[in-house]
């Protein structure tokens, strides 16, 4: 079997302390993105479990898989979950979700939960799109800007580069920082052209690390361009898979002259987490009116 260098590590986490049976509300948010899917289980207002997996060829199966992995071993059956909100690229196609909410609203809400009320600017670097979002202290979206037409600056673009250089994608960031001198960024915008450019650079004697550095800095430059159009207010956070790429994040920080506030437990679950928080709101509201 050939190595799939683009494959990032799928992960799952379960709370060791929370007893879900005692929770007043048990809800879930499922984010079916173009490349990755997440499910977050919320017991009352605490994260009980989450998982992060690769999106398959159709949305319903990907949603089911994400939910299944996050529930695995917890004793929770899907029917125990009282409300599910779907979000992401495939949100309209999640059969078990009672409601679909845009990923922009969900990312802001999730980033607000993880980063606190001081978070004002969110950069979501997803698999196939790039979003700059402004929100208020409650995590409500006030403004946003997105690019979903072009792979430059997206996770998918980075996967293409990892495959080309045969470098596991999780190592890209660290390797890109291991260079003696920061090279000139890759000049092509288009990922297809950047690929040809990278091949040329390798041929001219550049190391893989240098090519990765040049690509990470081109990517950082591109997203900073998008952010500058919307403006940056502190605190600033990054969500999505690329938030885990230290090579891109540190170069964004350098270019902006600003630190990125880290998000815990996982910047990639912001959308799913936001969806689960909306699910809880909706459940509480329906109980009140019932």
């Amino acid at each position, binding site marked *: 079997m050939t190595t799939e260098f683009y494959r990032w590590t799928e992960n799952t986490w379960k709370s060791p302390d929370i007893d879900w049976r005692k929770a007043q509300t048990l809800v879930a948010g499922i984010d079916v993105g*173009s490349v990755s899917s997440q499910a977050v289980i919320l017991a009352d207002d605490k994260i009980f479990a989450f998982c992060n997996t690769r999106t398959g*060829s159709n949305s319903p199966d990907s949603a089911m898989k994400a939910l299944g992995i996050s529930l695995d071993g917890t004793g929770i059956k899907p029917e125990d979950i009282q409300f599910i909100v779907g979000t992401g690229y495939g949100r309209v196609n999640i059969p078990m979700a009672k409601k679909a909410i845009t990923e922009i609203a969900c990312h802001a809400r999730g980033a607000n939960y993880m980063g606190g009320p001081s978070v004002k600017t969110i950069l979501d670097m997803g698999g*196939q799109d790039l979003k700059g979002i402004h929100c208020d202290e409650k995590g409500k979206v006030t403004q946003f800007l997105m690019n979903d*037409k*072009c*792979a430059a600056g997206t996770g*998918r*673009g980075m996967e*293409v580069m990892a495959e080309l250089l045969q470098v596991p994608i999780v190592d890209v960031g660290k390797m890109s920082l291991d260079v003696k001198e920061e090279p000139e960024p890759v000049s092509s*915008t*288009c*990922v*297809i*052209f950047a690929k*040809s450019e990278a*091949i*040329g650079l390798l*041929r001219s004697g550049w190391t893989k690390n240098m090519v990765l550095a040049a690509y990470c800095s081109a990517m950082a430059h591109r997203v900073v361009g998008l952010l500058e159009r919307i403006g940056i207010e502190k605190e600033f956070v990054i969500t999505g898979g690329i938030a885990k790429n230290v090579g891109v994040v540190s170069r964004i920080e350098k270019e902006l002259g600003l630190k990125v506030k880290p998000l815990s437990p996982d910047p990639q679950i912001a959308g799913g987490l936001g969806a689960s928080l909306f699910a809880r709101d909706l459940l509480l509201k329906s109980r009140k009116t019932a």
Partner: protein
Amino acid sequence: MITAGIDVGAKTIKVVIVKDNKIVARSINPTGFEPLETAEKTLNEAAKQAGISRQDIKKIYATGAGRKNIPFADHNVTEVTADAKGTNYLRPSVRTIVDIGAEEARGISCDPSGKVLDFSKNDKCAAGAGAFVESMSRALEVTVPQMIEFSHKSTKDAPINATCAVFAESEVVSLIHSKIEKADIAHAVHDAIASRVSSMVRRIPIEKDVALIGGVANNTAIVEAMKKHLGVDVVVPENPDFVSALGAALLAAA
């Protein structure tokens, strides 16, 4: 007088030799990683074909993306100028030229003498260039000629929404997974590139006759799709990939 035109493209290098206003040789090679060596080799092949020596060539003009890196060329001209000159020589009635290369597409409007009046181009993005067709053929796991053949057999429309070639590749993969016929996917791919190129060309006035040149003009499925999207008939001159090099050689003789 004998002159040569060298078109240093992103994917291939083309040479045309012109003697007293007649084409006497043409040669083409993949650009590879050493464009200068390839240019040298291609020129020598063309000279051999014409039965002349390098010294017989009085002037050499370069064009194409790598035109500035050919030290043995006497001068270089933009692809737009070369395209207009070359097309005018082959088809004097053409007023609008669409050139689709491997990494760039252009729309050019010219007067009856082959002088450029206006142009538009895209060189930032692979959508709407030959590179798009190639990456889709890889996704479909067929060769480009096979993809063209498939495309002509299509009976149904299959939607490709993505603009980006990288995203379209994922889309093609999911169309394959959902059991859409390869013929229909191939057709959708050609339709997508033609739609992108047409909207770029529409930034200039489209006047008849319209010619399609560049390597992609050899793709009959694209030609058909371009006719549909532009709503006019499209002529393809003989050896459409050599038109820029021809134009450069003619300009060198002027």
